[in-house]
């Protein structure tokens, strides 16, 4: 084989660089398509819904008159359902993840469990709704309540939390675990003082991704019987119920009927009066805002926690 001349090498390099530039351009185009779609969507919703985005929109209940209609019961309902979802899915999911990574023996049973958990994440949400209708609403007698909805969505995001927990734990170097055990710590002490704190940023990311998915879910919530028109809020703890001067207990709100943002939006888009489409756009924008806020909080917390990790 003859050695290449300088000229030939230059051509070869130029060709490589051209391909590099081409790919870079392609990447930028793909990225901007994605971004453009999001900007168009959010921009369109904002433009159409801008008229309705004022304080009253957040403090008024839904009404048959589009211009007086608000999302009070919807955003409160969404927040409370998310609270129950997080309270149920985080301890269950994190504990299950830790067990699978740190305690479970590697054998075919854990393999099967592992495959099933991954598959569960792909089960359509309506299936969870049907399951929850049978179990939570009727068998446990929770009724069409915030508790039923929260637990349903918790089931839905459980696989996401478990998988995120395991990924986070796996990214911790083995020497941390070994070091801890070498000085006589039990497995639990290792988890408690090392594994969990170090895995927390990753777990948090998984939790937020899960909650962001849950916040937009409509199908399972409708299946268990969320309401469409509801012009009152769940009872605040210790507030007067209006019945013989009794006051609400700390957790009475979990049994209250409710509605959530996606249902309210869906209801507005299917109205005969086109004026409700403005409300739907405004509510859609608010829902986007809620998801983005959750993501922002997660990023901030992750950043703060990472700063505290000193290996």
């Amino acid at each position, binding site marked *: 084989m003859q050695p290449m001349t300088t000229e030939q090498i230059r051509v070869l390099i130029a060709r490589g660089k051209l391909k590099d530039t081409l790919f870079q351009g392609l990447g930028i185009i793909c990225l901007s398509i994605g971004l453009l779609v999001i900007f168009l969507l959010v921009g369109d919703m904002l433009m159409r819904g801008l008229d309705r985005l004022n304080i009253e929109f957040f403090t008024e209940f839904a*009404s*048959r008159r589009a211009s007086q209609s608000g999302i009070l019961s919807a955003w409160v309902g969404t927040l409370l359902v998310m609270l129950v979802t*997080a*309270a*149920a899915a*985080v*301890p269950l999911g*994190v504990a299950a993840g830790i067990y699978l990574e740190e305690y479970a023996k590697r054998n075919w049973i854990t393999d099967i469990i592992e495959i099933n958990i991954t598959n569960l994440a792909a089960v359509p949400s309506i299936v969870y709704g049907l399951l929850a209708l049978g179990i939570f609403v009727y068998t446990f007698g929770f009724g*069409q309540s915030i*508790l039923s909805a929260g637990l349903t969505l918790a089931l839905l995001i459980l696989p996401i939390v478990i998988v995120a927990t395991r990924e986070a734990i796996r990214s911790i170097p083995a020497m941390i675990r070994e070091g801890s055990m070498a000085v006589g710590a039990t497995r639990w002490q290792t988890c*408690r003082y090392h594994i*969990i*704190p170090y895995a*927390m940023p990753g777990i948090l990311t998984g939790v937020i991704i899960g909650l962001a998915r849950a916040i937009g879910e409509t199908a399972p919530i409708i299946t268990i*019987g*969320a*309401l*469409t*028109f*509801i*012009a*009152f809020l769940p*009872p605040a703890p210790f507030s007067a*119920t*209006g*019945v*013989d001067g*009794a006051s*609400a*207990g*700390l*957790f*009475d709100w*979990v*049994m*209250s*009927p409710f509605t959530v943002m996606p249902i309210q939006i869906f*209801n507005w*888009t*299917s*109205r*005969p*009066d*086109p004026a409700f489409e403005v409300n739907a756009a405004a509510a859609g924008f608010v829902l986007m805002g809620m998801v983005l806020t959750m993501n922002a909080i997660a990023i901030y917390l992750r950043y703060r*926690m990472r700063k505290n990790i000193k290996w």
Partner: protein
Amino acid sequence: MFKQSKIVSALAVAGLTLFGAQAAYAQIVKIDGSSTVYPITEAVAEDFQKAKKNAIKVTVGISGTGGGFKKFCRDETDLQNASRPITAKEMADCKAAGVEYIEMPIAYDALTVVINPKNTFLKQATVEELKKMWEPAAQGTITKWNQVNPAWPDAPIKLFGAGADSGTFEYFTEAIVGKAKSSRGDYTASEDDNVLVQGVSRDINGIGYFGYAYYAENMARLKGLPIVNPKTGKAVEPSGANVENGSYVPLSRPIFVYVKAKSMQKPEVREFVEFYMKNADKLIREVKYVPLPKAAYEGNLKHAKEGKVGTVFGGHNEVGITVEEILKREAKM
């Protein structure tokens, strides 16, 4: 961080045990059922809560007439919105659960056949012509206007109609084709009537059907097609007045609210029903439905007072029944 999650889980467990003592939410009127009746009941619920200064709470869900009856007959709701009379199977379910009910017609719903405003050749249509367009045998064969009526042009028909799960679909097929749920399948179907509104308003050859309220809100973009009354042979425009005087047949039907007899003993439900019947005329006009004659609402209240339970339909739907007939008949469980 870990401490916090411990607290959260502790609270969750505490919650699970605490709410065992269910709080007293006696003052809730629970309503569910048809999406067609929903706008009316919602308007009543909104004004009722304002009138009562929120001392009585009302919830309204949309499970559809069928889904709502399931809950109603399981004794879960107080009122049931229904866009058709109770069926024989639902009657049996209610009977098995010991649920007795009072049947109250509350408004007319008129199905409207709409065409594009730029369509100039279509002035009216007969039930036979509509049947030719929509019956199952038309699937794949009737694709042009002149196949239905030789006087119409040689242009494609673009059909838009209700999805198979809706009460609108059930009633339209029963009134036009003659058999409920019997329809051609090759048309643009949607449960969301706004999709149909958009479709017909954008296609000069479009024709579709949906509830009158959707037409009333979109008159600028759509033209309501007059339907020939089979008895008089005259074409009748879809309008509130024509529905009220009974000439817009066969596409107008009464819609109902079923009230559980046991719930009527509760003062909050009784008050709600009284408020409903007293304000029905005004509120129904406001949400663009067609109200019944005033005597019907008084009749409903009288039935409730006398405890006249059951249905006058005996478990099957009837096309073209008038409200006067409904009120005169004897209700049976």
